[in-house]
């Protein structure tokens, strides 16, 4: 838990644009492996809905980030706030919309 907290503090201190390469790699892995357990490793959907750039084309990154942080009550989408900072959630939202960025 302490290491998570440390990560969270570290995350807060970093502007989104200046996300360290190691953090980016860690978040990419989290998207594939952990988001992937419901949304599919390739994010084409599973028990959760697809999260491909085409599907998310019209979604605002801020809106996606808030879904990531707070979940969708009444569905299986959990709140990730205990594990992710707001900057990290926003980074993931932008990454989902454009994995090449």
């Amino acid at each position, binding site marked *: 838990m302490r290491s*998570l907290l440390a990560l969270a503090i570290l995350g807060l201190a970093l502007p989104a644009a200046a996300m360290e390469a190691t953090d980016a790699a860690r978040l990419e892995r989290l998207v594939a*492996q*952990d988001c*992937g*357990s*419901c949304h*599919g*490793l*390739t994010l*084409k*959907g*599973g*028990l959760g809905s697809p999260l491909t750039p085409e599907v998310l084309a019209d979604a605002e990154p801020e809106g996606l980030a808030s879904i990531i942080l707070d*979940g969708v009550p009444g569905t*299986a989408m*959990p*709140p*990730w706030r*205990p*594990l992710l900072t707001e900057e990290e959630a926003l980074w993931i939202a932008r990454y989902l919309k454009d994995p090449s960025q």
Partner: protein
Amino acid sequence: MKYVLLALLMATPALADEYRATGDLGLIVERATGSLVVVDQSDRAAIGRIEGLGDLSHASLVYSPDERYAYVFGRDGGLSKVDILSREIVARVLQAGNSIGGAISDDGTLVAVSNYEPGGVRVFDAKTLEMVADIPTASKTIGLVDAPGRRFVFTLWDKGETWIADMKGAEPAITKVTGMGTNPYDALLAGDGRTYITGLFGEDGLTALDLWDETPEPIRVLPGYGRGEEELPVYKMPHLEGWAEAAGEFVLPAVGHHEVLWIDASDFTETGRTQTHGQPVFAMARPDGRQVWVNFAHPLNDTVQVIDRMTHEVIHEMKPGPAVLHMEFTPRGHEVWISVRDENRVDIYDTETFEKLGEVAAESPSGIFFTARAHRTGL
């Protein structure tokens, strides 16, 4: 022709050395690379690899009755039949857009696949992989198992129904059981083929069906379970498997809680709860039922705990490494193989001494499947 025959005859002594039984072989899913490692359980070693199976995240497989072929269910809707002796794909169809597991009929002639997209179950000839039945459900389907009497049983996530498909005739005869509960996420069939249990995500408790009943009715199990207690966010859905029966009790992962639940297998009443390290993903009984091994959801998925069936107490804890995804016992339970995804290896432990006996390298390993599964109902 004569020369060919002669060559064949001359080759015979060499072939004798190549006879290979499959009873102690198995396959490990390499989820990210779309491949399978062929392993020898007695030698605790990898003996080959089969590639080209598509998206194998969350993949599972079943075996033909002769334990030579495996049917691999990929996430991308791919159904592949592989020969574990020649290590080749002998048939493959892309049968849907998005799939989640499958089953083989008790007589070994039919393979069924559970699909998210489009929702439903499709049934294939086990020899050719030609489709023989399409059962649309207008819902994501989960918890597909084989049941005695050439039947398949599966459950509808969106509708809370369980369907029993009897495949003895030319067309599937479907029995629909409604009122199974909100958002069943997975199901298991007990080893005797009688009791089918679905776990519910959308409400407290579980629902059981007695498949020996002509018209099975939903039996609510622990309906008040977890009520009034704060639920934790669920970062990984638990799995239910036919390995959950331990000497007269079912042991089941709780959803959103750090515990496993013990249920009397004869009357479905609660017999206890065991507090665990994290939210359980698999709670698997050793084949003799004496121990239950549990792994956990992210972010506590580096740990495995062992619970004693007699006392319901945790008797051992180990940390094999980051992302323990699956465990498979040798058929008589003396050893267990544990996949450690982020360390790219599978660890082998003695289940009595908990001593590590060996390891096998594999790329992002997930499911481990020994061929002895061929002879078990509901796996």
